[in-house]
């Protein structure tokens, strides 16, 4: 067995059936061995999209996603995708080709020190200098990528190592004495948490991606119901609780639901689970929960106390900790004070439901999201790009299940929406997968229309067309005296013709009702399609201006109940 075959064999042993990649000079041996292997390979049209697809695959399925690129430019093209996965704790494995060992350091053709370049954005990396090391390194990579706080792993394989014969296939895990993630919460801390919960009169829960990653959604729901506390989520926590549930308030943060932003500081106890208190979630730190006790549960000790001072830290896996916490709360009934608070919040939620009903032409983005929501079933997966489209989707779309809302939160990577949808669809072929994009971000990755066509991946790409780089345009309008520097992108291309040139069907949508109809048909047809929705160029409001406190949103918050 040769090195490249060992890579494939090891991936198979880890249950991998599909990888995303793009060949090049230093991966020819690997691709040659892939030629005969029982391993599906999706040829993307840009390496960045291989990383995003692997990421989407991982987020949709909870399994590790794998992408492959050649050395030098292939590897550097993965960097944005790796950084995206790193920021959002997504387990992917990036395999890169490298120039032969004897040429490393010689500025050889297509050589880049990808191990060095990616050092700050990977959880760990390996460079096998001997084919015998490959099975262990791949197995260890999967173990490290998926355990603890998940993250990307890079494996950089010099060309001659791909070609070299193994003397033995030994895939025992590499010893990592420095890597012992704490998964079980300290029981004394958990009991203290129980006591804080029992003393609280106005508890509120903030659930983040950690809840989804650790499959703790049932435990979260149980906790929320036991203590009768409303639940907000971060952007990436969407789906941790069914957002149509009475207790679910929706997203907190810069573009959060008003009910969440208004209520969080009124709580006397914040139970934060699997969140990292990003600046986009908290607003100005000194006016975020100034008088609220904070319990912070997270598997990464470095997140605790990093941004928000914590009264009670619990390091551990969200599912483990919540299960133990729920156990200590057996027989607990929420007090009258708590019930009064939560009833008040539930009423507030109803009163503050954001307006989504419009019949304007050009279409209001809110109404487009509403129509999308009317068609999608709870198991449908929605991926978003970054910018206004993302915030509209996050704000107005109720996600009902975990792993069904996929978005680049931390890094905020434009061009993530469409390729991550490809990965999600490959991971979950039975679930409808829809990606919401802006016209700016979609153009960064539109070449992947070829991928969905060639492999018949029935992803539905919605392109909200307002001919602006909307989020930056909006900041320029609000904060830079309407000086719209480089944010008007003109009239090119015609997205319908663009899609058609790739052999992908496309529909141009301009009127109310058409999105719903076209999306319904697209799901039924189960074909790749682009829905080009022309929208009004407007702002994603309200929002927190930079430096504002969490309850200082600007812009009118239009309410659904005011619709006549």
């Amino acid at each position, binding site marked *: 067995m040769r090195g490249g075959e060992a890579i494939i064999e090891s991936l198979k042993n880890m249950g991998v059936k599909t990888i995303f990649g793009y060949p090049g000079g230093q991966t020819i041996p690997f691709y040659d061995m892939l030629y005969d292997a029982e391993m599906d390979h999706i040829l993307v049209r840009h390496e960045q999209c291989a990383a995003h697809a692997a990421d989407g695959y991982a987020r949709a399925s909870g399994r590790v996603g794998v992408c492959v690129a050649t050395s030098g430019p292939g590897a550097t093209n993965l960097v944005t995708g790796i950084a995206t996965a790193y920021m959002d704790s997504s387990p992917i494995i990036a395999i890169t080709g490298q120039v032969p060992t004897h040429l490393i350091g010689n500025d050889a053709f297509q050589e880049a020190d990808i191990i*060095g370049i990616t*050092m700050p954005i990977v959880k*760990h990396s390996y460079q096998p200098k001997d084919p015998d090391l490959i099975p262990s390194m791949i197995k260890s990579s999967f173990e490290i990528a998926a355990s603890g706080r998940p993250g990307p792993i890079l494996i950089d394989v010099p060309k001659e190592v791909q070609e070299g014969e193994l003397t033995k296939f030994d895939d025992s895990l590499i010893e990592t*004495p*420095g890597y012992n993630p704490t998964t079980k919460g300290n029981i004394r801390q958990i009991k203290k948490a129980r006591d804080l919960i029992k003393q609280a009169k106005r508890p509120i829960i903030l659930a983040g991606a950690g809840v989804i990653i650790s499959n703790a959604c049932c435990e979260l729901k149980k906790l929320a119901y036991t203590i009768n506390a409303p639940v907000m989520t971060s952007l990436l926590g969407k789906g941790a609780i069914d957002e149509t549930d009475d207790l679910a308030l929706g997203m907190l943060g810069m573009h959060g639901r008003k009910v969440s932003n208004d209520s969080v500081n009124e709580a006397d106890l914040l139970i934060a689970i699997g969140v990292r208190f990003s600046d986009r979630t908290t607003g100005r730190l000194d006016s975020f929960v100034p008088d609220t006790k904070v319990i912070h549960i997270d598997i990464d000790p*470095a997140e605790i*106390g990093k941004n928000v001072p914590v009264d009670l830290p619990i390091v551990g896996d969200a599912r483990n900790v919540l299960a133990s916490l729920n156990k200590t709360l057996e027989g607990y009934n929420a007090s009258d004070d708590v019930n009064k608070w939560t009833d008040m919040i539930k009423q507030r939620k109803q009163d503050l439901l954001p307006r989504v009903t419009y019949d304007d032409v050009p279409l209001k983005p809110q109404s487009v999201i509403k129509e999308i929501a009317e068609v999608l079933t709870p198991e449908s997966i929605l991926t978003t790009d970054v910018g206004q489209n993302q915030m509209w989707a996050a704000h107005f779309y109720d996600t009902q299940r975990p792993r069904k809302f996929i978005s680049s939160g931390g890094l905020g990577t434009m061009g993530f929406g469409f390729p991550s949808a490809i990965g999600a669809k490959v991971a979950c072929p039975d679930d409808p997968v829809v990606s919401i994009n802006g016209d700016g971000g979609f153009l960064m990755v539109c070449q992947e229309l070829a991928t969905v066509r060639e492999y018949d991946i029935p992803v539905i790409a919605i392109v909200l067309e307002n001919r602006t780089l909307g989020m930056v345009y909006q900041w320029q309008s609000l904060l830079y005296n309407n000086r719209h520097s480089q944010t008007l992108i003109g009239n090119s291309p015609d997205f319908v013709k663009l899609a058609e040139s790739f052999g992908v069907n496309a529909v141009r949508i301009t009127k109310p009702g058409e999105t719903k109809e076209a999306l319904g048909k697209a799901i039924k047809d189960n074909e790749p399609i682009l829905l080009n929705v022309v929208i009004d160029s407007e702002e994603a409001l309200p929002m927190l201006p930079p430096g504002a406190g969490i309850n200082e949103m600007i812009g009118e918050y239009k309410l659904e109940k005011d619709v006549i």
Partner: protein
Amino acid sequence: MDLEYHVISTLVEDKPGVLQKVAGLFNRRGFNIDSITVGNSEIDGLSRMVISVHADKTGLEQVTKQLNKLVDVIKIKDITKTAVKRELCLIKVNIPNEKARAEIMQYTNIFRAKILDVTEETLVIELTGDKKKINAFISLVENYGIKRIARTGLTAMARGV
């Protein structure tokens, strides 16, 4: 922000790139490392790094936690308060005249330093001690003209068991 002087001892895997990762982490979090020394430890395959840095409390806590997350980092300890600290310094000093030679050799004796190399015009002196001692010696011989200084940076070890 009150910056305090800290000495951190870390046990790491003896692998390529580990020094880069550790130093990079400090750099990314905005710390300027005063010195970093690396060498074999008492355990095969593991190295000990001693890092001295000026940092505020929360910043240091964060960087320590981030260091702990590196797969190659096994143990981290802030030994500022309990450590014996030593640094080795090599100094090449000019000898302007015979009187100077005698004086420098006297200082060398007082500081328990060693003379490693002698020529007509220069002396190479080896000195170990904490930062203060080395700085004191340097300022004493400065007047004669220092040609070169090479310092190892601080290494340290906690006292007691």
